[in-house]
Every structure is written in C-alpha cells, then in structure tokens.
C-alpha cells in the first residue's frame, strides 16, 4: 500500500476498510454518523451500539486486544485499530482513510 500513513496503533480486528472519518466525542455527535463511516472515538461504550453496527471500521485512542471496541469489531467482522493515542485529535470529520486492522496502520485514502 503506497498511501501515506497518518496514524499507527494496535490492530485488533483484522481486515481493511475504507471510509470517511466521523469523530465521536459525545452522544451529541451521534446524529452526524452515517452508515459506512469510520467510527473514531476515545473508547467505545454501549451507547454507541447502533453506530458501531453501521461503521465500516473503528479507531480508538486507547484500548487493547480485549477492550470493548476490539471484541465488538471482531464479531462484526470489521477492522479495528486501538491505542492510537491521538486519533480523535489527528483525524478530521469527512477525511477519507483506509484502516488496516491487521497491521494497525491508518492511511490517507
């Protein structure tokens, strides 16, 4: 893959997916989420169930192999990268990215 790497974290659910970033900082942000977006947040929680179900991939600032976003992504069969430390500050709404849940790399699409 020759695209520019924008972030690297821990890949915890394998596969790659491309989509537009949607940064979720609070529940007030939920209504801007569209099906196929990449869910970018500090860490997921059960209020995000419905948007997780519509996400093409999940990227989090913190977390590990057995954290909430990792477990759920593996069941949903979508890529997940956690422990990026700065995804919510570095990625912008609408930015097109490619998430590689195997290597933990996130590229500009």
């Amino acid at each position: 893959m020759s695209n520019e790497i924008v972030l690297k974290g821990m890949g915890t659910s394998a596969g790659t997916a491309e989509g537009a970033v949607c940064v979720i900082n609070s529940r007030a942000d939920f209504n801007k989420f569209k099906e196929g977006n990449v869910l970018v947040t500090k860490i997921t929680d059960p209020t995000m169930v419905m948007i997780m179900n519509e996400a093409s991939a999940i990227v989090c600032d913190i977390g590990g192999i057995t954290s909430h976003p990792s477990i759920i992504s593996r069941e949903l069969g979508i890529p997940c990268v956690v422990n990026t430390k700065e995804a919510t500050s570095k990625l912008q709404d609408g930015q097109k990215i490619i998430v590689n849940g195997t290597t933990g790399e996130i590229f500009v699409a």
Partner: protein
Amino acid sequence: MEQQEKFLWLDEYLDALQESIGFMDLSTLQPTSWRHFQPLIAKEWLDWLWNIIGEAERQKVSYTELAKCFEPDLCREHLLFVTEDLKTAKWPIEKRLKVADFFYQLLKAQMPQGDLFGLNGSTKRHSSLAIKQIINEGEFNKGTPEIAREFGKLYNSAYNLGAALYLDFYMGKAVENWGPYDLGNGKILVIKEMRHLKPTEIWPNVNSKCEKIDLLVIYEGVKFRTDLIACHTQYEGDVISGLKEWKIIIDGKSVTDMSIIKNLTQNLGEEGSRQWIYLTELPEEQLLEKAVWIRCFCFDKVCDLLSLDWRPTQKLLAAVKGKTLDEGWRTWKQFTNKDEYNDYWRKIWDPREEFYP
C-alpha cells in the same frame, strides 16, 4: 505433599489469568472496574460466599448439581475475583484454598473436555457426544455474508446490553461463547449464548424483548479461540464469508425470519444504550450498591438450590456505605513494568502464597 499436588491446577490457572488479563488497561472498563469496587466489600463478600459453600456441604449437594447453577465463564470469572478478595481480606491459607477449590470443582464438573481455564484457547461445556447430537438434530440454515453481518449486529446489541446490566466485569452472567468444536473438514461449531437479558430482579425497568438467545454458527476456514474470559473471542479468518450454517433459538423458539432478528437487534441495542446511560449517571453510592446487587445476582441459582436468599444482606450493603471507588483502587500497587506487574499479580492470585496487597 498431597496438599501440594492437589493444588497443582493453580499453576495452569495463573498462566491462563496472566494471558487473559495480564497488563490489561483497566481504564477502558467503564464506568469502573472490579479492582475499584471489590476491595470495598472483600471481607463481607467472602463471609457471604463462605455461607454458600458451607450450606452446600451441610446439605451434601454434589458439585455436579452445584455446577448446573453456574455457567463456566461465570465460574472462571468469580474464581478470579475471589482469589483477589482472599488476599485483600487476608484470609488464612486453609480457607483460601477451600474457596478456590470450590470453584475448581465446579469447573471440572462443567467442562468435560478440559481446558478449564481457557489456557489452550477453548471454552467447551459440551461433551463430544452432546455436539454430535446437536449436529444430528439438523435444522441448520445456510449462511451468507449478509446473515453473518446481522448476527454480528445482534451479538453487539446483546453484548452491550449485558455490559449495561452487569457492568463490564460481571458480563459472564450475560454472554458466553463455547467452542471451538471441531466438526472435521475445516469446519468448527461455535455456540454463543446471550442470557439473563431481562433481569427485573435487579433492574425492574428493563424492557428487553427476550431473555435468552442461543446462536449456533458453523464456520469454515475460520479459527476461533477464547481465553479465561469467554467473551474475549478471537478469530483467524473471515467470519463474514466463513459462516456456512447457522441456527438461532430465541427464548426457546427456533427463528429463521431475519426481520425478527433485526427487530431484536434494534430493541436490545436501544435498551442497552438507555440502560448504560442510566447506569453511568447513577451517583457513586448508588452505583456501588447496585454493583453489590449484581454480584449477588450472579449466585441466584445456587442460592435457590440451597434455599438461601441471593439478595445482598444488610451487612454487604453497609460495607459500601460512605466509601468511594478510588479507595478501592488504592488497595493495589501500580506498575509500568510488565514483568513486575505480572509477578505482583501472580502472587496476589495464588492462594498458596502469603502475599497481600
């Protein structure tokens, strides 16, 4: 010497625990972790549990009968929790070993295929014969990627409702994955059970549309493993294209209509979200009380079997009064070095060791 040999299983248990939760970042557990909560009630909890163990002995109830009152994951998790409590409360070694052995005996009765602590990546409640019967009963449906995605969403909704009902750490009450059961020809069976989804005993206002879901999935070209915590599922291979056959039973009824499944996903997801908001907005004192209720509820069936009241005693509830989660957390030493961390926790978890927080 005989005593030492009797507890050799603890070595495997420690290895399994280290693999499962070693160096886990507990800050991702929300709204709190068991290491914040449980030290606050360790002494009172052990007294409560000791009464159950003693009553089972007095009534001469076999481990086989007792084991039916728990799911394996619940046993594994409560063994972990209690081995930490035993050190917090500084119980003497004889009692520590007896409490640990109680859960070990239950696990032995529950898991005929071994790997009691998931060290080898499995959680197998069913014997080989039971699996043959399940497969021979038939009525499996053909899998497609679309259906696999819907099941992922259903699991997600039920899982999150479970976390909202039982906190992140007593999830064993709600969700468990069994397998992998090797079917030959590159196929495995995994059984996902989502249960106790409408516990009005602890949450009177919960409005889930079902109590229990059994999802049986046959994958091809997919490897599956869990660890000591059976909702810590991991896969190698594509779970979407790898789903070959499936069967789902909702509250005892076999369901094939995907619209029913989609509606249930919606209901459980919304209920989980609502419940989570309610849970996380509870004042700390109420959250602590609720955590006591939830922990006791994990033992409801065994209490019923022994004609005991599973509901928390006044002594248990009083134990959290005026305390804070931060107080509980300060029980433990904190580490940035992984080896030091693992050394510390292995000594805490090992009831044979005279090592205390």
